[in-house]
């Protein structure tokens, strides 16, 4: 496996990564995903990544981490610096799914924006409602979402079913609904420098 790159990824973006790999024929890449529940527990991301990096050390030609800072406040970068590993630039998945410039425009337009991706739209009940215990303590909904004004669905796929679900989630939270199609291109673009341009296949192989 020394000729391959291992991508340690957030489980919440696994579907998109597999799609991008297939689309680009990046056969030199293997994925290993960490539980998407870490999205709600960013303080646990650096240790989980560290454990995975150490368990795979030496098995691959290169390791790349498909997380942004993701609320770790630089703690993930400290772990990665120790091992000389790169990650996706940016603050969080919403940024790399949208593209930094576009995401900044969205954030500046309304600070009170609650973002959903395809994954979060599909798993809204588990990660948002049950994850934040709103199912058991319904009054917490207003405590969490009181300052939010709109729900922005950052779509990776063009799915009417997911759009209907996202709209329903906005209603559940009492927020205005907005749809923003991103596709997979922005993520694909930020992955290329590390996974393709920076990749040197062993002699005799081409990608």
């Amino acid at each position: 496996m020394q000729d391959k790159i291992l991508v340690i990824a957030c489980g919440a973006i696994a579907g998109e990564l597999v799609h991008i790999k297939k689309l680009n024929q990046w056969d030199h890449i293997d994925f290993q995903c960490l539980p998407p529940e870490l999205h709600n527990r960013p303080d646990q991301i650096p240790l989980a990544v560290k454990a995975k990096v150490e368990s795979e050390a030496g098995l691959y030609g290169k390791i790349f981490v498909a997380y942004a800072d993701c609320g770790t406040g630089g703690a993930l970068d400290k772990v990665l610096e120790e091992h000389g590993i790169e990650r996706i630039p940016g603050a969080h998945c919403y940024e790399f799914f949208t593209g930094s410039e576009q995401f900044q425009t969205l954030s500046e337009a309304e600070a009170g924006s609650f973002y959903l991706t395809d994954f979060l739209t599909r798993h809204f009940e588990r990660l948002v409602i049950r994850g934040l215990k709103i199912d058991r303590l319904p009054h917490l909904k207003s405590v969490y979402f009181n300052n939010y004004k709109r729900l922005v669905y950052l779509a990776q796929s063009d799915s009417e079913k997911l759009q209907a679900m996202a709209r329903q989630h906005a209603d559940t939270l009492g927020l205005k609904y907005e749809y923003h199609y991103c596709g997979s291109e922005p993520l694909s673009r930020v992955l290329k420098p590390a996974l393709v341009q920076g990749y040197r296949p062993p002699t005799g192989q081409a990608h």
Partner: protein
Amino acid sequence: MTDEYENDEEIILSELPDDELIEQMHDDIYDGLAPEIAEGTQILLDRGWDASDVLEKALVGGMAAVGVDFRDGILFVPEVLMSTNAMKAGMSILKPILSASGTKPIGKVVVGTVKGDIHDIGKNLVGMMLEGAGFEVTDLGVNIDADTYIDAIQEKGATILGMSALLTTTMPYMKVVIDRMKERGVRDDFIVLVGGAPLNEEFSEAIGADAYCRDAAIAVEVAKELVATA
């Protein structure tokens, strides 16, 4: 058997001696039991306790344990919110008594979440704990720009400015506020405390804040210490 066991578990707050009642209220705050906290607070007042003692020993004392376990990853946001709600139930009884007593605050604090950020759970908790510890707290809310912070600390005659941020994208704005304080020539007139999940000591030092507060209990300790030496 079951009935007998359940009966053994039932606790009548009014029958507990003071020390056990305080201990029970700490547990009830931890478990987020608002009606029990309201009842316990009233019992202590009826027994002749001073409102500030009830606040400090029963409520703030209980909430401090919640803050520590939140910091250590034992409790998560939903549990902390339940505890906060319980503490509020006690505070709502004590606040009018404390206001009427005219007790001088130990310091004045202005708190708010920085521009671009609308997260306020941590900030609200800190504000409540500071209030519980005897500070007069002005909460500016969320998405606060530099001049609004500075105008407020000057108008209120505050000693401390507390800034909160939850996002790595918004925490740099704290430096914008501190730089603006310098521009307006008031940086050294105030103590600046910063807090929020993605922050750390190193960041606090880098932006020139006076202290980083890892949790609400530490914010209270630091605020008391700095006000005493200011």
